[in-house]
């Protein structure tokens, strides 16, 4: 008995403990909590920075020497020996200083003149690609040697010069005085070289280029140098090539064109976004204009061959709608065309109107005693009189017992009795006179 009581007491005690625990757990799972959040703001993850070559003051971009008479090599070697290196084959006789040969040989200090300029590098140190354009414009002095294309050089009648702008491995574009030579290249960005970091003054966040230390950490290589980091950016190389006619005389006053180099770039992503937004706005504007047109000219657009009445007001409304349609932008016209609203529609409506504006007859002659003819009468127009031709060529009233006018849909049906021929031999034609408009004459057969 005592043991039972102990067990019972322990059991009850355990139940009490577990019960409260379960209650706590139940409260925890069904509970709720509130809290306040703050926004850290938005950081635009886009940075554009392009490294471009500069031009030393007093010098010209892509400085060159042109030698149409082939004097330079011979004169140089006579005076300076082999210490100046010129092209050994396919020499186009336009020379760009490419600096010293370099290397470890005895000729490392020799000056190299080539038919192409030293390459100039453009580096895109941006987080995204840029579309870079370089233009080269030439001076237009009267004494300048003419600039021609490479293909035209061999057939040139006078001394001429070719200068071509090259980018990477693309074909060169000739420089001319009429148009600027333009080359455009897309250079990739390097987003991996950027990060979002707290600003140095703790005023917020910024999207910035990695430091060298951060780059080393990124690539997990502590031996990396600034040069290694610099080599991660995408680049493009530009240069000029030249050629000159070799068998044409030049004067001592002939000058060489000077060049002006201008760089520019666009962010293709931003351009595409702007273009899409502009297209969307233009489409919305065109759709609205189309709806306005349909609303404004709803009555005209509702006309058909059956409903056109041929009135002057109707004709004016159709003309106004046609004129308004012609003045619409092509984009609006395209939208309206989906509802078969086009210039042809207005021509058709005008045709309906014209057809319904004057009485018409189904035949050019009427058989006396035959089926008769149908006369179409526009709204508001009635038949005033039926006349017959007299022997003197004039017309007078045809007696009503010699014809019948029967109502039909859209007008009248006229039949003439056969006895008209016997009673009025001269009545070889009859005239239908209307309340408005010109009469219609029919031959009597």
């Amino acid at each position, binding site marked *: 008995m005592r043991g039972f009581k102990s067990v019972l007491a322990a059991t009850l005690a355990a139940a009490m403990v577990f019960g409260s625990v379960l209650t706590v757990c139940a409260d925890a799972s069904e509970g709720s909590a509130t809290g306040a959040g703050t926004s850290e703001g938005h950081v635009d993850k886009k940075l554009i920075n392009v490294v471009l070559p500069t031009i*030393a003051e*007093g010098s010209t971009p892509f400085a060159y020497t042109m030698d*149409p008479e082939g004097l*330079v090599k011979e*004169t140089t070697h006579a*005076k300076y020996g082999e210490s100046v290196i010129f092209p050994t084959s396919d020499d186009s006789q336009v020379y760009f200083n490419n600096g010293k040969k370099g290397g470890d040989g005895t000729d490392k200090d020799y000056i190299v003149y080539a038919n192409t300029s030293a390459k100039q590098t453009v580096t895109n140190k941006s987080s995204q690609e840029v579309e870079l354009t370089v233009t080269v414009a030439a001076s237009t002095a009267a004494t300048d040697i003419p600039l021609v294309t490479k293909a035209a050089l061999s057939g040139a009648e006078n001394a001429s010069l070719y200068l071509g702008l090259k980018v990477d491995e693309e074909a060169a574009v000739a420089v001319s005085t009429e148009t600027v030579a333009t080359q455009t290249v897309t250079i990739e960005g390097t987003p991996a070289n950027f990060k979002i970091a707290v600003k140095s003054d703790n005023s917020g966040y910024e999207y910035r280029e990695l430091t060298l230390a951060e780059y080393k950490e990124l690539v997990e290589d502590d031996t990396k140098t600034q040069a290694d980091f610099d080599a991660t950016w995408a680049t493009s190389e530009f240069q000029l090539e030249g050629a000159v006619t070799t068998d044409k005389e*030049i004067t001592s006053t*002939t000058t060489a064109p*000077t060049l002006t180099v201008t760089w*520019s770039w666009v962010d293709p992503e931003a351009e595409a976004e702007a273009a899409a937004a502009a297209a969307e706005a233009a489409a919305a504007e065109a759709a609205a204009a189309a709806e306005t047109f349909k609303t404004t000219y709803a009555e005209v657009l509702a006309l058909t061959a059956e409903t056109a009445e041929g009135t002057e007001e109707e004709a004016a409304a159709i003309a106004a709608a046609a004129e308004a349609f012609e003045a619409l932008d092509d984009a609006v016209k395209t939208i309206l065309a989906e509802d078969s609203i086009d210039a042809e529609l207005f021509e058709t409506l005008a045709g309906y109107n014209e057809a319904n504006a004057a009485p018409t007859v189904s035949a050019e002659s009427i058989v006396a005693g035959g089926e008769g003819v149908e006369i179409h009468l526009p709204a508001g127009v009635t038949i005033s009189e039926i006349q017959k031709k007299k022997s003197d060529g004039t017309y007078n009233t045809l007696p009503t017992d010699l014809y019948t006018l029967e109502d039909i849909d859209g007008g009248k049906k006229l039949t003439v009795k056969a006895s008209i021929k016997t009673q009025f031999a001269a009545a070889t034609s009859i005239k239908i006179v209307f309340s408005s408009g010109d009469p219609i004459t029919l031959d009597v057969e």
Partner: protein
Amino acid sequence: MAKTDGKNYSLGKGGKIALFVGMAVIIILLVIVIILLISRNNVVADNVGEKETKRNVVVTKENAEEAVTEMVMDEYIEPGYYSCSMTNVWHFATGDAISEDAFVENKEENTNDIYFDVFLSDNEDEPILQSPIIPRGAQLDNITLDKHLEAGTYGCVVVYHLVDEDQTTLSTLRVGITVIIED
């Protein structure tokens, strides 16, 4: 007044004349020095703005020797580079307003201070904007144009000048931008 052994002496007539002449000479010399200094500064300023640009060479029989000498003696100058950090479409609410997006930074990695002039592409005789000197590490924003433009979109050229400590241009760079006047 000269004063010796406790007695006062006044300058005689001759002394006064000598004093007057001496002062006149000093004043004249000062004026001459000032004039010389001003004219020297003008010459320096003129020289800074008018460094002659070297032209490309056409070799003829008459100048072949000279041209060759120049080719050999001319030092090859490696192109310099400028890290160009700027927005390239500048919006202005009106021709006199401050732009909210025109921005030019002379990055710390560049080698020189800079200034820039902005021209319309079809008129590079008259700048529409002349910037102050922008040191390395500094940037320029809140830009307004020096010349009022009517509403429209304008193709423009920014001509950067990389300068030394005397603000003498060492090298230049041309960059095309678009200026949009909204109203």
